[in-house]
């Protein structure tokens, strides 16, 4: 008899031997005991978690005459097949007429399904049930699935279908709804090492706990992977497995070297880190494997750095935990997060480009050069400081220009340091209004107050102001959409010079808006600063702004402005309407009053 690999040899033959999946096993057992076995099952889950195994046990259990006899006599105590009777043995050896295991990936077309439909009608040869195990069911074609639908919905009473797949999403909804859906889950590390330990005991192989846990870790929760790894280790090493040998064959860096590297990185000792990386490479370990180890290690330290009491999330021995706790004390969560980010990025780069060593070295250099404690918020704060300084600087540059009359618009734009703005159409002069409401005036910067040299008698042309305001709004649209939508209905009012204040103050521009916007602090100081900055970049010298409700403004030059900006029903507006030549007689005639005015 030729050799059988461990995964096959130790394929469970009883429900109770199946590792994990208690939610599936318990349900199936109960169904068998209460004689409520369904007619179609769908088993799905990751590879190596027991789908085919459970399907085979189920096939044996429902058919095993010994089990049935026992159940009848003992009032239903066992759901396990006997594995001894003729039927169980036949099924185990895959020569039973009534348990048909179909490889759907090789027979994926409609023809095998048609054949199956023909055979389904026939009664089982010797057993109670005829069981079809359709493995890798996701590979059936659309036609094949559809051909199966009617049979699956109402199969003859003696038939049970078991579909097994790793890819649940490829199974049509119509199939899923006709089956009892059982999901198989990844197993826990502990369960896998327990299982491996019992196999090793039975096979007379000695292995230590550390070795078991590294196999379990490597298997990612899939028992068959773990068993195959064990198989390979036994084949290459022999009957005595030690953690060191295991790590070597699996390509793990010895935990000692990994620890050394981590320590050097945490202490930002670059040359030592590079040295220990070189040592790892010299040992011939798989650098990608090594990268995984590093990521896991840093993750564990990060967990400890967040909270010392989260030990239960970490797998590892006591001494290792203590070491990690020390390392967690040396650093911050922030830095660890960035280290992990660098490592994961390195992983994807190695996958794309190869050259693991070069990428890892680069990562080590990066990790060592991350300084402690520079928080993102701090960087942002520093940046905005610099921005402010630049703004002040450009403002003072503007002030040194001898005569604003002669300012070339191009140079103004350059000085304002905002190359992405269109250059202002012309230099504008600004008038001033005395009806200020001091509370809502915003002073941009005290430095800007020395603008005495500026001459604001230049054109207070409403056309040009409109133009400027339009451009400001356009720039806002890109920077701050919310502010743009608040301001888009407003107008920059022409500036009146004759009411001008003392010459050393900065001119105040009024922005006409509805009263809510003017009175409440909807627009924050920051946003006002932004508007002021933009205005200055287009006008060429510092200004202040003030929001005024449209009805209160003293400036009412044209009906057009009034229509577009003034709130209907404002006092001024009503007075005008009342004096309207056509409306007045009508009002008189009916002795009427104006209640509401709506713009056209």
């Amino acid at each position, binding site marked *: 008899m030729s050799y059988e*690999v461990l995964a096959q040899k130790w394929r469970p033959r009883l429900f109770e031997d199946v590792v994990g999946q208690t939610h599936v096993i318990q349900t199936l057992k109960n169904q068998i005991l209460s004689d409520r076995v369904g007619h179609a099952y769908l088993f799905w889950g990751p590879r190596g978690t027991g789908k085919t195994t459970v399907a085979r046990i189920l096939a044996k259990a429902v058919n095993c005459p010994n089990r049935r006899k026992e159940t009848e006599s003992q009032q239903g105590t066992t759901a396990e097949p006997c594995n001894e009777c003729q039927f169980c043995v036949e099924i185990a050896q895959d020569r039973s007429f009534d348990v048909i295991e179909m490889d759907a990936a090789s027979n994926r077309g409609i023809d095998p399904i048609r054949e199956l439909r023909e055979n389904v009608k026939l009664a089982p040869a010797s057993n109670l049930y005829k069981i079809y195990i359709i493995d890798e069911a996701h590979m059936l074609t659309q036609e094949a699935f559809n051909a199966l639908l009617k049979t699956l919905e109402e199969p003859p009473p003696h038939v049970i279908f078991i579909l097994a797949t790793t890819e649940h999403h490829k199974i049509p909804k119509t199939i899923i709804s006709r089956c009892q859906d059982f999901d198989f889950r990844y197993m826990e590390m502990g369960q896998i090492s327990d299982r491996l330990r019992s196999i090793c005991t039975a096979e007379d192989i000695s292995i230590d706990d550390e070795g078991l846990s590294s196999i379990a870790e490597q298997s990612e929760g899939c028992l068959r992977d773990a068993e195959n790894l064990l198989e390979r280790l036994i084949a290459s090493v022999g009957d005595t497995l030690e953690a060191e040998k295991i790590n070597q064959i699996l390509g793990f860096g010895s935990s000692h070297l990994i620890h050394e590297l981590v320590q050097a990185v945490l202490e930002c000792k670059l*040359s030592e880190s590079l040295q220990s990386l070189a040592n790892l490479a010299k040992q011939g370990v798989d650098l990608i494997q090594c990268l995984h180890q590093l990521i896991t290690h840093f993750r564990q330290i990060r967990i400890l750095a967040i909270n010392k009491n989260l030990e239960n999330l970490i797998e590892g021995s006591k001494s290792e935990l203590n070491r990690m706790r020390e390392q967690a004390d040396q650093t911050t969560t922030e830095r660890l997060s960035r280290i992990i980010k660098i490592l994961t990025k390195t992983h994807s780069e190695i*996958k794309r*480009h190869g050259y693991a060593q070069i990428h890892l070295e680069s990562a080590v250099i990066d990790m060592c050069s991350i300084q402690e404690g520079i928080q993102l918020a701090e960087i942002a704060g520093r940046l905005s400081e610099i921005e402010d300084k630049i703004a002040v600087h450009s403002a003072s540059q503007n002030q040194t220009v001898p005569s604003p009359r002669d300012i070339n618009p191009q140079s103004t734009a350059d000085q304002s340091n905002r190359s992405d703005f269109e250059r202002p159409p012309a230099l504008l002069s600004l008038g001033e209004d005395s009806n200020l409401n001091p509370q809502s005036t915003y002073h941009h910067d005290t430095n800007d107050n020395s603008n005495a040299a500026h001459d604001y008698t230049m054109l207070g042309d409403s056309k040009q102001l409109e133009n400027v305001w339009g451009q400001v709004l356009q720039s806002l649209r890109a920077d701050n959409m919310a502010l743009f939508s608040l301001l888009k209905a407003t107008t920059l009012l022409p500036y009146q010079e004759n009411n001008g204040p003392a010459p050393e103050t900065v001119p105040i521009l009024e922005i006409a808006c509805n009263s809510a916007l003017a009175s409440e602090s909807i627009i924050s100081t920051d946003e006002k600063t932004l508007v002021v900055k933009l205005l200055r970049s287009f006008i060429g010298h510092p200004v202040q702004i003030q929001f005024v409700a449209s009805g209160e403004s003293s400036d009412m030059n044209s009906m057009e402005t009034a229509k577009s900006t003034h709130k209907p029903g404002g006092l001024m507006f009503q007075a005008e309407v009342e004096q309207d030549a056509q409306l007045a007689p009508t009002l008189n005639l009916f002795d009427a009053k104006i209640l509401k005015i709506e713009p056209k």
Partner: protein
Amino acid sequence: MRSPIIGHEQIIEQLLHAIESNRVAGAYLFAGPANVGKETVALYFAKSINCTALEQGPCNSCLSCRKIDNGNHPDMQIINPLGAWMKIDQIRELQKRIVYRPLEGNRKVYILNEVDCMNLEAANCLLKTLEEPPAASVLVLITSNLDALLPTIRSRCQIIDFHLLTIPELSEYLVRQFNLEEHKAFHIASLSRGAVGNALTRLREKEDISYEEIPEIIESSDRLAAFRIAEKFNRDPDALEQLVSWYRDLLLLHQGAPVDSLTHIFHAQRLQQLTSRYSRLKLQTAIKTVFETRELLKRNVNSTLALEVMVLKLLPRT
């Protein structure tokens, strides 16, 4: 007899041990970089399984060994992808044949090359066979891209990882085997990045391998030279592969790493001088840029243009 295979001692030991202790599994998956010797080891394994006078490796003289060497052993078959893909029909053909007993040898051996080229249907089709292969058969799957395989395939095989040889290991072998001068051997070894197959191809194709020089791109700062350099890279894609290692050396030197960790030890002094022209970030960006360009060249881009852009990016600004 000692194995004629360079490196992979551990793997060979594992496989032979499995044969001796009668623990040969039904399905193996050899994974590792291209041209590193996977198929050679697979053939060696096939010979060892069927050799009639096995003693620490196949005898190479018995009928079975000679038949495998000549590729006419009835129980051994190598399956290569048909065109770009390995197709489901090839797998079905295999499944039909694998159920029969071996004609002459102990076990039937099927070697499937480049299994990452299997399309989805073929891969799934193979699953059941892989899980429970007929007793007297061994499937050896070979891939250089383990991640491209279905996890369900991986889980059913014993995965054997092949690694690149270290540069000194390979160059030592080259010196021993081909009587090369030491620095030449070292150069070839580092050019082939430790893959034996690459090194042998290089030896066969280019008899005269000149002494390596520092790439012009690192030394020059004349931006007009960029186009000439790009043209050179265009003619000799290997130089691009090689370029990364130079930047790596610079980076290491820049960070004060010991000299013996360098690839180009012979130029350590000159490189040390050159480091002053670069910053750490610049070197790291340079490495990234080379990789990205390499990636681009694999796609359908104008290679001259891509290389010119790369060189312009890499040249130190004066």
